């Protein structure tokens, strides 16, 4: 089976890779590109631990073929902090103990950022439904939801 040559952009950097047609984006991110921040919890799009954005749209990278990355802009958890500055969501998750084991955390952060990018003023219900595709087994979601709500409020304050 001939490998496919893919040109894409990941976290702002131009990236080229070779992949087999059935390979998922998650496999290439983790096994070829060394971007292991995206996690595989289920491989079936049910847990959200592998969440990335493609041209700003939230997707489960385990459900995306690597070949589909051609010509698109991907963002992963590794691209969320800027230099030595954590993103406000990353900071707040740590401050509010919105993670326990931390395996679901990259997926929640990517999904939460995708939410705030399109809806800077979500209600608690909107946050809960937006994040319903991300499973967390440790926290009961309470502190995650609080962290996202607080960051949304802080960012609105800053933007004012």
């Amino acid at each position: 089976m001939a490998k496919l040559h893919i040109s894409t952009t990941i976290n702002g950097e131009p990236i080229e890779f070779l992949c087999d047609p059935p390979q998922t984006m998650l496999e290439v991110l983790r096994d070829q590109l060394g971007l292991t921040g995206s996690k595989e919890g289920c491989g079936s799009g049910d847990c959200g631990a592998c969440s990335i954005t493609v041209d700003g749209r939230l997707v489960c990278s385990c459900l995306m073929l690597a070949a589909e990355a051609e010509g698109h802009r991907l963002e992963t958890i590794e691209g969320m902090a800027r230099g030595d500055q954590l993103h406000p969501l990353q900071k707040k998750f740590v401050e509010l103990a919105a993670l326990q084991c931390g395996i679901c955390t990259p997926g929640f952060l990517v999904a939460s950022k995708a939410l705030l990018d399109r809806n800077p003023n979500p209600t608690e219900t909107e946050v809960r439904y937006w994040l319903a595709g991300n499973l967390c087994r440790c926290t009961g979601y309470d502190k995650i939801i609080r962290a996202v709500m607080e960051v949304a409020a802080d960012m609105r304050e800053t933007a004012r």
Partner: protein
Amino acid sequence: MSSQPYKWIGTRPNRPDGADKVTGRARFGADFNMPGQLIGKVLRSPHAHAVIRSIDTSAAEALPGVKAVVTAKDFPEQPNVIVPTGEMQVNLRDVTRNIMAREKALYEGHAVAAVAATTEAIAREALSLIRVEYEVLPHVIDVEEAMRDDAPVLHDHLRTEGVKPEPQKASNIAKRMENIKGDVAAGFKQAEIVIERSFTTQPVHQGYIEPHATLASAAEDGQVQIWSTTQGHFQVRGFCSRLLNIETSQIRVTPSEIGGGFGGKTVVYLEPVAVRLSQKTGKPVKMVMSREEVFRASGPAPGGSVKVKIGARRDGRIVAAECTIALQAGAFPGSPIGPACWTSFACYDIDNIQVIGYDVVSNRPKVAAYRAPGAPISAWGVESALDILAQELGMDPIDLRLKNAAKKGTKTSYGPTFDTIGFVETLEAAKNSAHYKSPVKPGYTRGVAAGFWFNVGADSSAAAHVAEDGTVTVISGNPDIGGSRASLALMAAEELGVDYEKVRPVIADTSSIGFNFVTGGSRVTFATGLAVVNAVKDMIRELKGRAAKTWGVDPEAVVWENGMARPAGSNVGEFDPLSLAQLAASAGKTGGPINGHAQLNVQGAGPGFGVHVVDLAVDRDTGIVTIDRYTAAQDVGTAIHPSYVEGQLQGGVVQGIGWALNEEYIYNSKGKLDNPGFLDYRMPVASDLPMIETILVEVANPSHPYGVRGVGEVPIVPPLATVGNAIARATGVRMTDLPMSPPKLSAALDAATPRMAAE
């Protein structure tokens, strides 16, 4: 709530591993790789119960890229010896059969062979080339059916333990146990009201988001390195040593960050197989389970049945209580039947108690510990029965529990007498909570239940090192599953009188610190915390000695205060205090490096109690339950880092809600699991839930210098009955079988109101 004179304990600083875990930098089980590694995959039985006639691996071995195939023949036979693992006991003879089936496949998903190949695709292809000849046998799944005389027998050698005379016939009942206090027959004669009901539960999975994963590298000289996601790397070392006949010190296990465990990562599945494959190939072997494998082949919690009988006087005083519990152990003996029995009535001061338990094997994966193993199942029965009693007596459910609450001095049915415990305080905190005092919203009803867990101490080692600049490293050996690094660093900073930021906690591999029992039993902050405190005390002793040497005085004339050595009094002499940094700078002249060590078998774990309150609504047409408000009150001892204590309560509650409302293993008629994925095994998601309110009742544990009690397990015990009791009060229908999922609940409601259902 906390009014203790602590500087650091009770504060909420950022966790030391926070930045790593929000940036994707933290390395979990599947994130480890080595140059030249092979990928290992497991062939699993498609049958629930079958004799393995033969295994032909020749075609697989001939496939280019395949480097080794192993079957049970590659693992030495093991003696019939029980060893402790976490809160469960396992038999080595059974463990080696669980990691690789020998005579029989005992459940669908049971490992029968494994391959190592250059790529995952080749490994998968190789699995399809292995020919296994099975003789399929009748199977049994349900616990009550497995106990019947005519049930298919899993193990011909198994005789029921704890029965006299010793049975001659093989049985699926591995053990019968009982614990008795007083005289229940006499007690029930005093009863003015007797409640008697039977309850059942289905197996549920721990549901950690990170699948099992390991990387093993066996060198030609016999040394073995393992990287693994585990709650106990010392247990991984111990199991691999025993199962593969390797000297323990030849094996070095480094724990990865762990993506949840809840008890399910206290045992081994992949590690011995990866080591064996690595030994055979001379290359590192990486193995990662798929989610489907996690469901089919790693330990769920048992399902079971609970029969409860409670006798009380009209004033609510319980005079006798009886309970019979049967738990599925899975394919091998060893369900948490002991803790299920011991916890059943532990919340209450009852003179006459009889508890009988059965440990029963069936054709399901061998169960593993799950957060307070066994306790949620017995509490589901007992706390539901108590709610019925409260309803029949017209009593407030918290008042009924207060009237019977265990206190300091209460003797349990399983032996010990309670020291200082906080059940009464926790009941009162729940009763006085804003939630319980608030009126119930129209359309909603309120439920209440309680729960108990012992908590555990056991073996811990720790070390503390002063670096050249006076900063401190604290080394321990328990994987951090929910913020324990922060708790350990807080206690070290408090003891030493230095800033939390100056203390760096590190989790060492098995060769870099002494033995530590698993991260489990709610023991890390308590027991390993005590080891850390003692290691710091040992280091302070050393620091005082160095100051004494510097000043030319006796070590007894030096005190340690606020991170500095000072003269004990003016009679010692006039000396400026010496800081950690100063003592570190001069260490070379006063005796060399400054370290502290501690190792102990920790006793005196303080039991914990929880009282939960829920407001919920039931949609009578669909059977969907909507939770509007949930409060968990718990006796937590001292909350070292309150955010992570709250997190334990919130997480445990939500797992319990999942257990109550949706989660279950569903088997088809062939004994195959029908829902081995997160879509069909439905765990709670964010949109199912409200915020989970917590009340931390701080009744200090007298056996710990900072009053620590374990907190992680209690919160999963009450929710099953809390939710069930509210549903019963909402609908008038008492659900007795879990989960109370929409189809089951709506069917029960329809059955209770046939006329309406027919309309």
